[in-house]
């Protein structure tokens, strides 16, 4: 289905814990129905990744310590996210064994302590973009990894897919806005194909098709953007690109994804405004994975509150996954208590105000700007136009708040330049494609137009 209006058309209703379409999954867990639940994501630390026993043992230790910490802290709902590295999906038996082991421990804790939980399997995008991306060994393996996830007990499946990334990376590094927009048209083609398949696979079992985030796009940009002093690319452009990735990530939902959307996609807030589906967001507590200037804003509308990913190291207070779960859980307590006290808007507004003028990347994710950008997306007549409209709306929002943002001179220059470049884009997709296919075919080695039917 194509979304042509917003589920939450007022920022007042776009709130943490409250989705328009809550989902039930896993062991008695409900998501998006008035409660924020922590989602903990982890990465084993092993000496030898080719030694599967060691890998499985590390996953076992993480799973046990996280579940134990949950019941010790009186957390009665939790989502575990297993984000697979390539090698573990390339061997499907490994994928299966890890998920089955985790699910059986989760069942034990459910039986013994009443711990409600769900397991998310995030499959690696195994493809090489310079090969055929649908007629290949790697595509088949990736689809099988989804099947194995469904069979192995994953309650939610997700991916951070990379269609179009090859052109995006090249363009991002050169500040080439046109190329970044063009890459979204490639992503569109791939997202439709990919998510039709994923949704079909989940129909064979009980897993929810969660969502797919623009990690390879806007998050790469955000990481490169770095902090206020060490800025390496323009934060204004990073903010505009965040908005411009919303149409891409929306396709998963158009194809049938139900949420909870994957963390690591800050554009999740647009997904929630548009679709009403529950979303997983990360902010300050994903500092383990990357620094960001968007620490508080993402909490304003989250249904799951995540740490992105943490490597399993030993701290005085325990292993990092349990430590990060503890930190997430106290923030969930605060959000949930504000809901119980009917003070959620007050708290949400404090979170928003504390962060939105720190950086344009934060501003465009604040509730009101998010609703405006989402509106631009659904009001546009085509995918191409929605990308451009979202980017233009982001520019507009940043310009309106220019004084509060106290942008350095160089960023003000980028803002003007971006606005002009967006203005100069052709209205017609066909014209835009004509201008760009062979240009990027020449410039980007890995880009194969035929992969996208071009």
């Amino acid at each position, binding site marked *: 289905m194509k979304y042509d209006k917003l589920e939450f058309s007022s920022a007042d209703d776009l709130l943490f814990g409250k989705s328009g379409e809550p989902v039930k999954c896993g062991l008695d867990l409900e998501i998006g129905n008035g409660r924020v639940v922590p989602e903990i994501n982890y990465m084993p630390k092993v000496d030898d990744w080719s030694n599967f026993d060691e890998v499985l043992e590390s996953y076992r230790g993480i799973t046990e310590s996280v579940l134990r910490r949950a019941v010790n802290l009186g957390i009665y709902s939790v989502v575990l996210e297993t984000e697979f590295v390539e*090698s573990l999906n390339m061997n499907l038996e490994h994928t299966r064994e890890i998920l089955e082991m985790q699910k059986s421990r989760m069942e034990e804790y459910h039986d013994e302590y009443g711990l409600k939980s769900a397991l998310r399997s995030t499959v690696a995008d195994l493809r090489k973009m310079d090969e055929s991306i649908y007629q290949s060994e790697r595509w088949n393996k990736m689809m099988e990894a989804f099947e194995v996830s469904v069979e192995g007990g994953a309650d939610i499946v997700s991916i951070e897919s*990379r269609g179009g990334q090859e052109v995006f990376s090249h363009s991002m*590094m*050169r500040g*080439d806005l046109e190329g970044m927009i063009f890459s979204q048209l490639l992503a569109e083609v791939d997202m439709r194909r990919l998510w039709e398949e994923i949704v079909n696979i989940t129909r064979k079992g009980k897993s929810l098709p969660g969502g797919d985030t623009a990690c390879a796009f806007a998050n790469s940009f955000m990481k490169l953007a770095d902090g206020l002093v060490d800025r390496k690319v323009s934060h204004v452009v990073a903010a505009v690109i965040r908005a411009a990735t919303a149409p891409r990530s929306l396709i998963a939902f158009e194809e049938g994804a139900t949420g909870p959307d994957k963390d690591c996609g800050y554009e999740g807030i647009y997904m929630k405004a548009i679709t009403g589906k529950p979303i997983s967001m990360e902010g300050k507590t994903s500092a383990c994975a990357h620094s960001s200037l968007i620490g508080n804003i993402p909490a304003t509308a989250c249904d799951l509150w995540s740490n992105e990913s943490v490597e399993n190291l030993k701290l005085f207070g325990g292993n990092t996954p349990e430590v990060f779960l503890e930190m997430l859980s106290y923030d969930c307590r605060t959000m949930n208590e504000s809901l119980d006290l009917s003070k959620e808007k007050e708290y949400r507004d404090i979170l928003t105000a504390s962060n939105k003028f720190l950086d344009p990347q934060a501003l465009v994710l604040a509730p009101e700007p998010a609703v405006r950008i989402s509106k631009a997306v659904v009001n546009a007549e085509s995918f191409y136009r929605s990308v451009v409209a979202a980017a233009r709306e982001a520019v507009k929002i940043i310009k309106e708040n220019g004084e509060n943002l106290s942008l350095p001179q160089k960023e003000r220059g980028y803002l003007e330049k971006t606005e002009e470049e967006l203005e100069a884009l052709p209205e017609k997709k066909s014209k835009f494609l004509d201008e760009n296919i062979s240009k990027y075919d020449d410039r980007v080695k890995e880009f194969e137009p035929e992969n996208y039917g071009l």
Partner: protein
Amino acid sequence: MSNFGELKEAIMNGDEDLAEEVVDGLLKDGEDPEKIISDGVVPSMRAVGKKFDSGEYFIPDMLVSADASQAALEKIEPLLSGESLEKSKRAVFATVQGDQHDIGKNLAVMIFKGAGYRVKDLGTDVSPEEVVEAVKEFDADVVGLSALLTTTMEVQRDVIEALEADGVRGEVLVAVGGAPVTQEYAEDIGADVYGASPFEALNKLENIL
């Protein structure tokens, strides 16, 4: 009349066309190709690196400069003597096996090209054997290995071991980088240089080479 100041301006502004034009002019005026590189291109890129380090340039500014520098170099190279071609340093870059991250590696490729290196880019997900093969074929002075995952950083060690097994370790300097990599780790696996950024790696290598 074309001059080195113009070339520097073209490179620093990332104006590819102008850079080529200025080089054409310089060559027509009989300027020595080697001197255009050593007194024109290389100092321009060094100035770009400084502006990047000071925060005045962002990555895209630097990369379009590197593109312009690269365009200029491509004009000049066919005119270099075999001897001076021999003199330019040669580097091979790869993101190691199992790892698809290309940003850091691409940045390094651009920066080294801009600094006058002859560069072979092996892409991502490259096996140790492929690296060894390329080092030999290309007669590389430097091999740069990028890894963004803790799961793949160990492959940097495998590459060094493969170079040793093949007997070519002594002929090439190994530079490693990537988010999980540290100076300590680099020493541990026997790399020659660790770079927190491609510029850092480049500077350290210049001190050795």
